Structures are given as structure tokens and as C-alpha cells.
């Protein structure tokens, strides 16, 4: 239909009103059936088939709400119809045109509205089939709605022409039940979804070409079940077994069940279907059949997965941001407060000795500020250093270098070291990070030693798939992980009464490990010791 003829639709609509009024009473059940299909396919809560009349818009058929009239003028809808007679409004609550329209009842504030036009024989729009939701729309494919609306148009036209031929004939559109069957099969066969109908014993009553495209197979399967089909096609019974479980679940319940199903297509590309099964019962509650259908939601699935990755990235970034906020608001602000108070007292003091004492106190405060600031800058650099290069790291060299630096502390505590890098002597990692990581872990192990025993520190590597896992274990103070587990690697977290503990080391180590895609974790028991593990990823290439 062409857009230019929209005005004539509005004029012809008036003529169409009187056509619709009478025939609809006889085709009500059929329209209800069409509407039911549309609602099931969409998964939305509300649907209607409505006609323009001189009393406004009348819902001839409706599901999910209970008024017969829409209040307000809706002829503007005609202007929005696309060339193939469809219109979608993702959020009518924000749409001025809809301001005076109340589509359904008070209980449902409609937000999403999509419709396909129903036309009379002359092609004039006399009404529409619509799907509605109280939540705003978020995309989705409603192609089938157009096809169903075409069928509704056909029904209306047919009933009108029959009525015109013979007023006495009130029995409706179809004379033979064969016509009716062909009519419904036509709809089901043309819907771009998989549809299958089962009897109460899970034997196939019907499948459409969307489910099985081969006509011979489609004929074969009628009256058989999935196990027979699997045997016939030489396929594994696993799929049939899973389908049977779902079927029993649906057959034994009164509600539809739905699930997502991902299979690889012949090219190995994963295809995801949203599948639903719903039981149909008679008035006595006996199971008549189970209707199943599936819609291809692969595109939506891909978007969802992309979103999940993004959300994860964002939440990591958000945590880092919170960490920085904490440093700025506490670690940096605390020494600044001290400095400003000291300066104020120095200014106010009239006693020279007092003033000298205050000046002496400035020094550690300034050093503290300086240290924190340096660490902060360094950790920001790690995050920005995307270009940092990995190189082959011979771990023994780095451990030896660190032990030289920690010689004083190690000798003082008579620490013993056991080093075993036989399984993975070399890793691929940025040199400056690995040095800082080993230095942090070893100096922590010495710093938090148990005073009553000599420190025994074991450093080892092992291979695991593509990764190398470095472990550093000590017999020191240990940490109560139940208490501190969550905040373990955060900035400024100190777990022991140790004057050298600033709480920056583990945060830095974690940042460096994670910047290269690795992970770090700890196992510990108070008073027994701790073991830190670092997983270096993507170490496969090096057969070194």
C-alpha cells in the first residue's frame, strides 16, 4: 500500500465500518485463534484485533485485558504505517500523539505497541492486529504479525462477501472442514518459526517446514516420536532423550515451559533458539496435545554476550575507580590534613622548643605523602601501559636479584628459601612487572613471619594447560581469610601490627598481574602461613 493513499484510507474507513460490524460476530472464534498464535509467538502479555468504527476503536478480539473500546482518536496511526502495513512504537508513554489514547484498561499502562493493518477487499485499512506490552519495546522481529493480519483480512473479506451473497447463510466462512484445515496449515507453514504439535504420548501430530524442511521427512515423522526419528536418521538418542524430559515437564504442568537451546549449524556456527512447549487441555483437564515452537534468537544472543563482556569490563573499571577514590580521599588526604594542622600550630606557637618539635613532625608526614603519591602514579602507569612488552624471564635470575636486595631482612630472621623452577623455569612477562611482583611477595613473606619460628619460604612453578602458576608459600603469621578475604588485595589494607605495612604492595601486584590477563589468589591459615598463587596466562608458545 502506498503512503499517498493514506488519506483515502481514512475516508474509506467510514464505509468499511458497516462491513465489519456484522461479519465479525461470526468469525470471532477464528480471529481469537489467530490472536492466540500471535501472542504465543511474541511472548508479550497483551494483544488485540481492533476495528475502526463510528464509535471509535473497538477491540473485536482481545487477550490480557477486558475493555471493548479504546478511548481517544487513533486515526494518526494510519500515517505511521509502513509500505507493508505495519507500525511499531517502542514507547508510547513519551509520545504526544498517544497522549489522549487509552488503549486498554486502567490496570495496563501500555508502553510498547506494534501492529499490522487489517484491510478490506479494496485495500482500505479497517483495523489492525496489535501486540502490546507495559514495558517499553527492545527490538524483536514481529514479521509473523503481518502474515497473521493478512489472514485476518482474508477472514473478514471472505465473511463479508459470503454475507453479501446470502444473508440467510449465517454459518460463517468455511463450508467444509477441509477448507478450515488448509487455512490453518497455510498459516502454520508460512510462519518463519519451528512449530511442532504432539499428542499426549509425545508422538508428532504436525510439524511445519520451519522445523523440518524436507517434505518426505515431515510426512515420515507424523505418528512417530523422537526416538523413532533418531533411529531412522541414524542420530544419537541424546537429543530425543532431552526432548522427552522437556515434554514430560510440559505435559505434567499447566503452564508453558521455555528454554534456550544452542546447537551448531553444519558450518559449526552456533545457532540459538528460544523454545517453548505448552500443554493444551480440555475442560476436564485432560491433555489433548502439546504445542512446541522455537524462534531463532541467535542475533539477540550475540548481543547479550557482547553486553555481558562489557558489563564485566565496566564493573572492573568501576572497582578500580573506587580504589582510586579511596586513595585520594584517604591515603592522600590524611597526610595533607596533618600537614595543614602542623603548619597552623607552627604559625601560632610562640615557644621555640614547641615549634621545633612540630617541625620535626612534618618530616614523616611529608615522606608518607611522597610515598603514597609515588605509588599512586606508578599504579596509574601500569593501567595506561598497554604497550608494555613481554619478554622471556628466567625466574631464578629475578629471585636471586630480589634475595640480594632483601639480604638484610633475610639474614636477620635466619630465613631459609627453597626454590623449584624445574617444571617451568622461564615465563613470558614484562620484566619490570615480574621484578616488582617477586619483590613484593618475598618481602611480604619475610615481613609477616611468625616471631617464634624461622621463616621457611618455598618458591615454585608448575605448568597447567597454557598457564604457568607461580606459588610463594611461607610459614608466617597467616591471615584470617574469612575476615579479610574480600578486601585482601585492596589499597591500604594492612592485616598485621607491623610499622612497615603500608598496604600498597598487594594492590600493585594484583594490578600488574591483571594488566597482563593473569590472576592472583591466596590460601592462608592464621598462625600457619600463607601461599600466594599467580597464574601467568598464554605461556604455551615457549618450549623453553
Amino acid at each position, binding site marked *: 500500500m502506498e503512503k499517498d493513499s493514506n488519506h483515502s484510507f481514512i475516508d474509506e474507513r467510514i464505509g468499511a465500518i458497516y462491513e465489519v460490524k456484522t461479519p465479525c460476530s461470526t468469525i470471532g472464534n477464528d480471529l481469537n485463534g489467530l490472536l492466540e498464535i500471535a501472542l504465543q509467538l511474541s511472548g508479550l502479555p497483551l494483544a488485540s484485533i481492533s476495528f475502526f468504527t463510528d464509535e471509535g476503536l473497538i477491540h473485536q478480539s482481545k487477550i490480557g485485558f477486558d475493555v471493548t473500546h479504546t478511548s481517544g482518536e487513533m486515526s494518526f496511526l494510519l500515517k505511521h504505517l509502513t509500505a507493508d502495513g505495519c507500525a511499531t512504537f517502542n514507547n508510547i508513554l513519551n509520545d504526544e500523539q498517544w497522549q489522549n489514547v487509552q488503549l486498554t484498561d486502567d490496570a495496563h499502562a501500555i508502553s510498547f505497541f506494534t501492529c499490522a493493518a487489517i484491510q478490506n477487499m479494496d485495500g482500505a485499512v479497517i483495523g489492525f492486529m496489535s501486540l502490546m506490552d507495559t514495558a517499553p519495546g527492545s527490538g524483536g522481529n514481529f514479521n509473523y504479525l503481518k502474515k497473521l493480519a493478512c489472514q485476518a483480512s482474508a477472514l473478514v473479506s471472505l465473511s463479508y462477501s459470503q454475507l453479501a451473497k446470502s444473508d440467510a447463510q449465517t454459518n460463517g466462512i468455511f463450508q467444509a472442514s477441509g477448507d478450515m484445515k488448509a487455512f490453518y496449515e497455510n498459516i502454520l507453514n508460512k510462519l518463519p518459526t519451528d512449530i511442532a504439535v504432539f499428542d499426549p504420548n509425545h508422538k508428532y501430530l504436525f510439524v511445519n517446514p520451519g522445523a523440518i524442511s524436507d517434505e518426505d521427512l515431515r510426512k515420515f515423522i507424523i505418528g512417530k516420536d523422537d526416538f523413532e526419528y533418531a533411529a531412522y536418521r541414524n542420530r544419537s538418542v541424546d537429543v530425543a532423550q532431552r526432548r522427552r524430559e522437556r515434554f514430560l515437564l510440559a505435559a505434567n504442568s499447566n503452564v508453558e515451559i521455555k528454554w534456550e537451546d544452542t546447537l551448531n549449524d553444519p558450518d559449526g556456527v552456533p545457532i540459538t533458539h528460544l523454545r517453548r512447549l505448552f500443554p493444551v487441555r480440555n475442560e476436564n483437564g485432560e491433555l489433548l496435545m502439546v504445542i512446541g515452537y522455537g524462534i531463532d534468537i541467535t542475533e539477540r544472543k550475540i548481543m547479550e554476550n557482547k553486553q555481558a563482556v562489557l558489563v564485566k569490563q565496566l564493573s572492573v573499571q568501576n572497582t578500580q575507580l573506587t580504589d582510586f577514590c579511596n586513595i585520594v*580521599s*584517604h591515603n592522600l*588526604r*590524611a597526610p595533607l590534613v596533618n600537614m595543614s594542622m*602542623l603548619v597552623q600550630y607552627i604559625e601560632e606557637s610562640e615557644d621555640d622548643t614547641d615549634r621545633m618539635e612540630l617541625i620535626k613532625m612534618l618530616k614523616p608526614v611529608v615522606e608518607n605523602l611522597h610515598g603514597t603519591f609515588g605509588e599512586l602514579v606508578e599504579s596509574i602507569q601500569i593501567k595506561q601501559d598497554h604497550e608494555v612488552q613481554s619478554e622471556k624471564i628466567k625466574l631464578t635470575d629475578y629471585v636471586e636479584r630480589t634475595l640480594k636486595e632483601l639480604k638484610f631482612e633475610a639474614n636477620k630472621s635466619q630465613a631459609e628459601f627453597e626454590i623449584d623452577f624445574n617444571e617451568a623455569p622461564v615465563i613470558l612477562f614484562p620484566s619490570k612487572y615480574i621484578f616488582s611482583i617477586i619483590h613484593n611477595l618475598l618481602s611480604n613473606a619475610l615481613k609477616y613471619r611468625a616471631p617464634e619460628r624461622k621463616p621457611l619460604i618455598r618458591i615454585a612453578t608448575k605448568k597447567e594447560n597454557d598457564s604457568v602458576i607461580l606459588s610463594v608459600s611461607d610459614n608466617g603469621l597467616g591471615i584470617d581469610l574469612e575476615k579479610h578475604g574480600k578486601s585482601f588485595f585492596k589499597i591500604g589494607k594492612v592485616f*598485621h*601490627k607491623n610499622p612497615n605495612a603500608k598496604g600498597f604492595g598487594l594492590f600493585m601486584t594484583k594490578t600488574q598481574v591483571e594488566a597482563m590477563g593473569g590472576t592472583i589468589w591466596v590460601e592462608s591459615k592464621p598462625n600457619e602461613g600463607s601461599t600466594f598463587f599467580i597464574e601467568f596466562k598464554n605461556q604455551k608458545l615457549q618450549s623453553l
Partner: protein
Amino acid sequence: MKSIFLVDDDKILVYLTMRTIKSATTETTFKDFGNGLDAIDYLKSIADNTELLPDIILLDLSMPIMDGWEFLEEYTKLEPHIQKKNKLYIFSSSISPHDIERAKSIDLVSDFIIKPLKMDKIMEMVNFC
């Protein structure tokens, strides 16, 4: 005489804060604790002793061993057994709205004081309890 317990690991800050309070009022006594655990242990030991129990507790948030939040958890359990009512103030250099909101949601916390401690705040605290 009002008794004030200051729970804070920053020795310089403790010194400066005491000095500020002393210059504002002579009607106070002090005791300071380097972390939450020391303060909780001491409070437990004097729970029945109204002579020794404080009128005011100033609590830092970021401390080693037991930080201010953990102290609050422990103190919430202990408080019903404390024989003398007191006012507890968070005393932190944090300006994070998240910290402030979280602190104010705890019943035992009277207020969130951002460091440094100002004269008018001292008078308000001392007169209020």
C-alpha cells in the same frame, strides 16, 4: 570532666587532635588506641566500670588489624553490656560519600566528622553528651 577515647593509628594526628581539644576546653581527659581491636579489648574489660568508660568515642575508619567498620560490628554486639551511654563519632579523613552514607546508616554512629577536628565541633560534642 568528659572522657574521650580516640581510636586512630596515626600518631601525629592523635597528638594534633588532643592538642586542639585541650586548647578548646580543659574539661576533658583522653585515651588513645592504635587500632580497633585494642579499643574493643579495653572496652570489654571495663564494661561495668562507669568510672573508666568514655563519654565520647572518636573512631577512625582506616586502621591496621581491625579497622573502623570491623570495630563497629564488634561494638554493636558489645554495646548493650556497656554500663554507661556514650556518643560515638566517626572521625575520618575520608570525604567519600559512600563512607559517609554507610556510617550514618549505623544506629550507634552519632555523626561523621571529617578531619581535621574544628573548635566549634569540639564544643558541640562536649556540650551535647
